[in-house]
């Protein structure tokens, strides 16, 4: 099988995020970057698929030239065979999806492309769907179990209220991966060393025949959530305080 996987470099999940002075971006100083958590599931599923069905894995990233480091340790060292890094900075998710679709098309011959269900920085939930639409392929979101047979796939996806839906379809397809699909493996020392020699192509939009086009959406402003108000101390002895607490829970918090 020829397997593609889309991976975005985002701030680490535990990075301390501060809104920049322009109110539309975040402060990047001192922030560490890694592959977005859901994209790690996508990479793991790509590797498992190759282990089971054979083939080749190519990863695609739209991002800064410095993404090279994270791609080597987080994709190539784990089992991705080659990486394509499109060093562009489109203004919106559609622009990113157009470049990814162009790169996938330029490479050609894929049976399946994995993405995370969303990325942990912007949480737009759009890339997988847009890439599939642009390629004219089938697409399943929030996948927690997956099987291939011949040119057919069967994917289980999470819906609201704990309901699971099983979707069958024909390849090629874009599969967006959800937490629970797999457990991400650790890299091994020899693989990290070998990853340094694996091909990683940094290309511009022109080289893949892509064009992000004008952004159709933009960020208005970013704001941190309001600070949590200070706790309230209830004075008095235990009996009085307990009564007051019950009253507050019932009348103010309305949880009783």
């Amino acid at each position, binding site marked *: 099988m020829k397997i593609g996987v889309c991976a975005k470099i985002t701030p*680490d999940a535990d990075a301390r995020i501060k809104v920049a002075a322009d109110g539309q971006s975040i402060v990047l100083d001192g922030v560490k970057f890694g592959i977005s958590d859901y994209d790690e599931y996508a990479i793991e599923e790509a590797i498992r698929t190759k282990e089971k069905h054979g083939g080749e894995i190519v990863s695609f990233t739209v991002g800064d030239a410095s993404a090279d*480091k994270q791609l080597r*340790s987080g994709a190539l060292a784990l089992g991705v065979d080659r990486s394509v890094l499109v060093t562009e900075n489109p203004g919106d998710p559609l622009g990113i999806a157009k470049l990814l679709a162009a790169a996938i098309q330029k490479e050609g011959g894929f049976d399946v492309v994995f993405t995370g269900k969303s990325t942990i920085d912007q949480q737009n939930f759009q890339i997988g769907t847009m890439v599939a639409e642009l390629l004219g392929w089938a697409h399943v979101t929030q996948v927690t179990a997956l099987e291939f047979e011949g040119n057919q796939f069967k994917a289980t996806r999470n819906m609201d209220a704990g309901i699971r839906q099983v979707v069958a379809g024909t390849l090629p397809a874009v599969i967006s991966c959800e937490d629970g699909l797999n457990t991400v493996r650790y890299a091994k*020392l020899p693989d*990290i060393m070998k990853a340094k020699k694996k091909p990683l192509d940094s290309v511009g939009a022109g080289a893949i025949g892509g064009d992000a086009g004008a952004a159709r959406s933009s960020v208005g402003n970013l704001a941190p959530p309001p600070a949590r108000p200070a706790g309230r101390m209830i004075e008095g002895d235990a009996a009085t305080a307990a009564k007051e607490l019950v009253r507050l829970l019932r009348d103010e918090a309305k949880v009783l």
Partner: protein
Amino acid sequence: MRPITEPDVLAGYLTDASNIAGRADGLFRPTTTEEVAEIVREANRTKTPLTVTAGRTSTTAAAVPMGGWLLSTERLNAIEQIGHSTATAQAGVFLGDFQDAIEATGRFYPPDPTSRRDCTLGASIATNASGARSFKYGPTRPWVESLEVVLANGEIVHADRNTPIPCHWPIPQWAEPEVKTAAGYVPTKRMLDVFIGQEGTLGILTRATVRLTDLPAEVLGFVVFFPTRQAALAFVDRARSAQRADPEGALSPRCLEYLDRHCLDLARERVGDVPDAAVAALFCEQEVSLDEETHLAAWWEALEACGALADDTLITTDDAGRENLHAFRHAIPAGINEQVVRNGMPKVGTDLSVPDAALSTIMEAYDHAPIRHVLFGHIGDNHLHLNLLPTTPDELARAKAFYDELAAQAVALGGSISAEHGIGKTKRDHLRTMVGDGVIEQFRRLKSHLDPNWILGRGNVIEPPL
């Protein structure tokens, strides 16, 4: 100030990680040093024992009160200053929170006891805490710049690195073992040192200024597997020599943590990724001081030379990955705790350290454990934790007797009966075995001089008078 006496409130403060239950008549939660001083004066006047309680992560019952009052530092939790070379906070700030705030400015305070998220800055100093990174950075002591301390008479004193000890203080004169140790009062000429590692018995720490260093930009994390224990020890030897020769060299781990085959069984159950041939593993971290490839090549060479299962070495090159590797390491205590709960019996955990030359001897002694056990810990400092997991009262008694034998053997080998957990109320006998009656008497004189009514941390380190 009046103490809180509600039994329901007190109930939350009567035990620590030792699971030994204590009793208390009242609880204070002061917010300022002056309030602490006022409480101490009142305790001293009325001769009421006063036990400091903070995160209650101690494994030695040091935070467990045996009557009297409790003083919780939970509201003394302000971070007051973070500069380039030092940072200052009140004693009750959580160590992990303090470190997060420091690291957000690009600076670094290295001491990392496993409990750092749940323990406080003050308590980590009062116990001279250490952790995995102590292999490179040492324990807490060298990182303390100055302290504010409330003495047993209510006097507030400030000690920095240059503050001498008043000439009438009877500082014990004895030779500490030349190993990692957190046992007994230190022989010192600096007042600052007197209050580091005294376990709340000589004064109450209310504020501390600590020294900072550069935050390492990148850290590599490794889990290395070995087909034999000898191979693991060979690698420890080699990595340790290299680290000592050049602390910033290509092979210069900042921590070397051992996991025995029983630990690996627990890890196999919980996280996988453990090769079948592995009987021992090392969890290691390497700060990137040169370029990454140079470090990786040096590690690879050393691992192959020592007969490690080098191909199976797990590695992470970023913070997020390192957190995942920590999950691997933390599967061990989680697995042990599950066993303890299942057994319905407390575990017996050792904290012995020995000189380099005695490491394999003490490890062979651990092999003779009479009941189910796991062995893990800070092998870079020859400081392993043997956890014995009894299932019956008889096994518990045998485990305790075995621990006593091991403590005596560690002392005979020139080691310490407590490398990092301190003495608390559970290891006073072992301390006596280590230092002898004469030195215990010296400890007693210092304690009596600074706290004539024996109100502070009563029962910790040395037995209180009847």
